[in-house]
């Protein structure tokens, strides 16, 4: 269940309360997020949409502990991450967040296997245990036969599959996807979305995704629009538009 009205008591996996983010550019204060509230339960699949510069990626960075808010809080599975120190936040990210980027961001000098293994190098798993996890993750994304290929030897869709395998290999609490299909053709995009849906439906993963594409967003359980720094549910935005309100 996804809510953007910010109830005071919630058992949601992810709770965002009064989130503000302000940037200073050229002496001018730009408020990107304004008192944003959000509750996401385990197993939810949320898509964030909005025009460029609306703060979608900023929100994703704040949820993933890559950036710190100007005000407000983000609590994940009981841990409030907004006041964690840098190193504690790094350890938290390694344990709880799987990142899937638009440009794949694989290490070009490492094979698919080595790329997927990277998050596990931060754990205490033995080499054989790591191998088992990596092979499983690559199996989930149907790339077991490409594990010793370098990124340059893979197609864009295959590279994104490796990124997904890297994101899920350490079994994180939730996945953050920043335009996961933005650099792919329609067919590959469909395959990647099928894979993400499978992660939600079959493996119970919680997924938060940013996209520009309404067709891609439609595959999520809920689509939220970022509008003037706050989140609006898609159907409410449509109602507002029909009433001549929100554009």
């Amino acid at each position, binding site marked *: 269940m996804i809510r953007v009205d910010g109830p005071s008591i919630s058992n949601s996996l992810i709770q965002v309360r009064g989130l503000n983010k302000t940037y200073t550019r050229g002496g001018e204060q730009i408020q990107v997020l304004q008192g944003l509230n959000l509750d996401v339960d385990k197993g939810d699949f949320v898509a964030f949409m909005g025009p460029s510069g609306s703060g979608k990626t900023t929100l994703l*960075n704040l949820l*993933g502990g*890559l*950036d710190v808010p100007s005000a407000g809080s983000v609590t994940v599975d009981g841990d409030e991450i907004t006041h964690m120190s*840098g*190193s504690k936040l*790094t*350890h938290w*990210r*390694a*344990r709880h967040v799987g*990142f899937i*980027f638009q440009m794949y*961001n694989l*290490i*070009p*000098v*490492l094979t698919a296997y*080595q790329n997927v293994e*990277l*998050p596990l*190098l*931060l754990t205490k798993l033995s080499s054989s245990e790591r191998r088992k996890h990596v092979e499983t993750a690559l199996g989930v994304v149907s790339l077991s036969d490409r594990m010793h290929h370098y990124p340059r030897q893979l197609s864009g869709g295959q590279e994104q599959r490796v990124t997904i395998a*890297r994101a899920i290999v350490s079994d994180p609490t939730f996945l953050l996807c920043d335009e996961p299909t933005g650099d792919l053709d329609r067919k590959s995009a469909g395959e990647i979305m099928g894979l993400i849906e499978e992660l939600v439906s079959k493996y119970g993963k919680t997924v938060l995704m940013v996209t520009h594409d309404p067709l891609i967003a439609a595959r999520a359980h809920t689509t939220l629009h970022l509008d003037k720094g706050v989140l609006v549910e898609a159907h409410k935005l449509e109602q507002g538009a029909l009433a001549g309100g929100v554009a």
Partner: protein
Amino acid sequence: MKFRSLIFANLFRKKFRLILTVGSFAIALVLFTFLGVVKSAFNRGVEVAGADRLIVVDRVGLMQLMPVSYGDKIRAIPGVKYVTHDHWFGGVYQDEKNFFPQFVIDVENHRQVYPEFIVPDEQWNNFVKDRQGCIAGRRLAERFHWKVGDRIPLKTTIYGAANWEFNLDGIYHTDKEGGDEGQFWLQWKYFDETVPSVIKSTAGWYILKLDSPDDAVRVAKAIDEKFANSSDETKTETESAFAAGFAKQFGNIEFLIMTIGGVVFFTLLLVTGNTMAISVRERTNELAVLKAIGLTDRTVLFLVLAESLVISFIGGVLGLFLAWGAIPAVSAALTGLLPPLLLSKTMLTLGLLFALFIGAASGLLPGIGAMRMRVVNAMRRV
């Protein structure tokens, strides 16, 4: 180490750049090592000097001769155990480029004063009995393929343009590391009979062995006081001070070497520092991703430093290996112009430490930059 594959994969990312950087290290290490062994060669006299030996020279200068009668007077001073004297011969063997040091020695106490120069008893006794005898160091004999029994002609212009001939009665060696096996000794008695009258009954310098090194200052003072206000006043100093003064006659070698070494150091630091900075800048996005997935700032610093250290280690070892092969050849080519160049274990260790220090220093700034990099900014930049 878990990140080994990542470190080595990054190293081989730009193979040509890696080869150039490792090559810079290797060449710098060859130069560093060469400078080190040259410095060591000039200082070897100081390093191998006996702590219980004093050298007495004429106060005017080393080339000024002193009466041979000084020997008995010096021996009479309490604390002096043995006294011997040497002369510089300055002969030429076949050609001037075949330079080697030749000393006219007093056979009476030479072995007692210089126990580190080992001559088999039989050879020494033959030398003592043979007025035209001579003894050569092992390295010198090998250089000219001499063997005991050979007749060795020398020409000298110092004592008249005379042709001298000597019988090689023995070959000495030394077990002391860095010890000089390049000397040539001939007998003072034969020399004294042959030289012009103005040089007869003289000694170039005296070498004395003390009962105890603790007596050095007192004995040196006593000797110089004894010959004060005489026609040949003396200057007495420890053998190491004498050797250091002798080396300084060639100019301020140490300053020259330190200056060149400093230039090598900073050039290498700039080259490798720049290489590492470029390498890190090219990978900003990748480093940001690594931080995003959970690598700590310290681990990122470690990765950059490890790369830099591996490059410096490979380059350093390669450079030292090249130096190890090249220095004996250079030493052989420069025989007579420079003292023997010896690459010691200490120098090899110093060279490797030098390389690793440069590696750490050149990786530090880019590493700190990568450590402080904010993921969000880095991802936005690319």
